[in-house]
């Protein structure tokens, strides 16, 4: 994709999302906050999955690091600035990802997936069992924080979330998207793609395969923590459910739904999944079945996801006019 086309997509998408609170009831604006959180986490996840070719089945761990980090900083240590929290959880998440990643990146494919799942569950059982530290299954409270140094005291929580915080998350997502765009289009990103397509040849050409995989793992962990902090802030709670392996599966689901071979795919996937889940949950008690069926359908029939379908459509239209 050329920069201009990507820029058009990005600008149109941002404009639509920015105007959303004017056109839609606050409920949908509230729904868009987890979307931003997931989208940021997925941008990182896709650096690992789409660009480096490593499928992590334990990525929810970093959502948990973000959410629990926010809970500890805001609730226990009384930190008021959300920016400071974001910075801290990014660093913390990277620091955790470094040893975990160093072990995991020695493997690829199924083994990498199982190993990340193991670490994710290790973290989950730590959160779940060490009640006095983490609150066990009732989780930890995430206190309300300032954004950009402003406390928006006159707003109640719902107004705050649907108004300033929504735009704040949107801004974060744009910054995250821009940073990720720069990463994947840098020489570093090119290295990652080389490692994905042919690790042995990359090694032969002098690329430190493990080092690049590890770098991608750490970066994706930092993005995940930002997403987790947003999710935790919105609900006001960090709970171990956020780290369970099915949550990691859900992240993979979103990436594949949107199309992991496209830069914007994960964002589209996060948006579609959030809306889809919301609609299905209001329609039927058996929304998991529907989601599973949709996932199966995508995996079998549309492995390129929504972004792939869109590209297909565009090619077809272009073919007709030519």
């Amino acid at each position, binding site marked *: 994709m050329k920069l201009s086309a990507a820029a058009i997509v990005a600008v149109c998408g941002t404009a639509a999302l920015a105007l959303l609170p004017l056109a839609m009831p606050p409920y949908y604006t509230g729904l868009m906050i987890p979307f931003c959180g997931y989208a940021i986490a997925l941008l990182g996840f896709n650096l690992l999955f789409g660009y480096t070719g490593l499928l992590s089945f334990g990525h929810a761990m970093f959502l948990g690091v973000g959410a629990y980090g926010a809970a500890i900083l805001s609730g226990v240590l009384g930190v008021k600035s959300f920016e400071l929290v974001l910075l801290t959880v990014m660093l913390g998440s990277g620091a955790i990802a470094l040893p975990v990643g160093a072990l995991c990146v020695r493997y690829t494919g*199924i083994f990498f997936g199982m190993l990340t799942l193991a670490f994710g569950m290790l973290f989950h059982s730590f959160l779940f*069992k060490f009640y006095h530290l983490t609150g066990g299954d009732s989780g930890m409270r995430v206190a309300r924080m300032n954004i950009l140094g402003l406390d928006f005291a006159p707003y109640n929580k719902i107004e705050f979330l649907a108004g300033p915080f929504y735009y704040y998350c949107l801004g974060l997502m744009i910054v995250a998207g821009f940073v990720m765009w720069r990463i994947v289009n840098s020489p570093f990103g090119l290295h990652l793609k080389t490692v994905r397509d042919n690790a042995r040849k990359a090694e032969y050409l002098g690329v430190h395969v493990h080092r690049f995989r590890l770098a991608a793992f750490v970066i994706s962990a930092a993005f995940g923590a930002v997403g987790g902090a947003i999710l935790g802030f919105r609900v006001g709670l960090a709970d171990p459910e956020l780290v369970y392996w099915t949550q990691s599966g859900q992240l993979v689901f979103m990436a594949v739904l949107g199309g992991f071979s496209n830069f914007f795919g994960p964002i589209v996937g996060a948006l579609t999944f959030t809306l889809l889940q919301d609609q299905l949950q209001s329609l039927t008690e058996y929304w998991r079945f529907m989601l599973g069926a949709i996932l*199966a359908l995508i995996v079998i029939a549309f492995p390129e996801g929504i972004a792939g379908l869109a590209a297909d459509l565009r090619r077809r239209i272009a073919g007709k006019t030519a």
Partner: protein
Amino acid sequence: MSAFANIVAGGVFHAAVLFLVAAGLQLVFGVQKIVNLACGSFYALGAYFGITFIGYAHQFGVSEWLVLPGLIISGLLLGFIGPPIERVLRTVYDRDESFQLLLTFALVLMFQDVFKFVWGANPRSLDSGYLIYGTISTGDFGVPVYNLLVIAAAIAVAAGLGHFLQRTNYGRILRATAENRAMAEALGVDVRRIYSVVFTLGAVLGTTAGALVVPTAAASLDMAIEFVVEAFAVVVIGGLGSMRGALAGALIVGLIRAFSILLYPELEVLAIYLIVVAVLIFRPAGLFGRTLA
């Protein structure tokens, strides 16, 4: 001392059940190269269906003494779900393994709601039968005979599978297919059929394990996704694709779990995963796995 024996007996019983599911997982991975996240769902399906099956059997006046054979039969009956599911998986054999993993994850999600739809959200349990075979006890040490029978059944399955894979002609064909699918196919092996049989066998091992555990524990919606985690641990410790590995891994996980629940309950799953991580650091391919390329 008897407390120690009690824990060991409990751990070995859990290991027996774990082994059955892990053996199914290993078989399917060994031959089809698919890691089946839905193995826990098969396990849960076996448990739920076992309860229903025994319930009906009671209504028709079948003796309570037939609980164990009844549960085994109910597990075997569920084998019918194997071929259709394998047919769905067949569409992604040529794709990247991440897609295969995702498709089995889709199955997990769908099974979750099937259980909820058919059996409801509340845990279900078998109200009778567990102690019908009595208990063997000396002093403080006591173990239900049912547990011993299940352990014996698992040992029999292990021996039977070993014999089947190593000594019979069909087993040799299975191993040849696992080794080199294209070559087996070129030599006239009907690989499609083999895959269907293997997957069904794997599923049956899972459902039977689930049915066997039902007299001792309730069937709940969480059991599917919780059990996968343990089965994965077994497989990683033992080495992917290895039957002996499944046996050793199941024993390790079963015993560790039993001891940690008693000594330091906080460590239950944590201890298992610490072992997993340790194994992966020091023996990356698992205890009985082949070294990875």
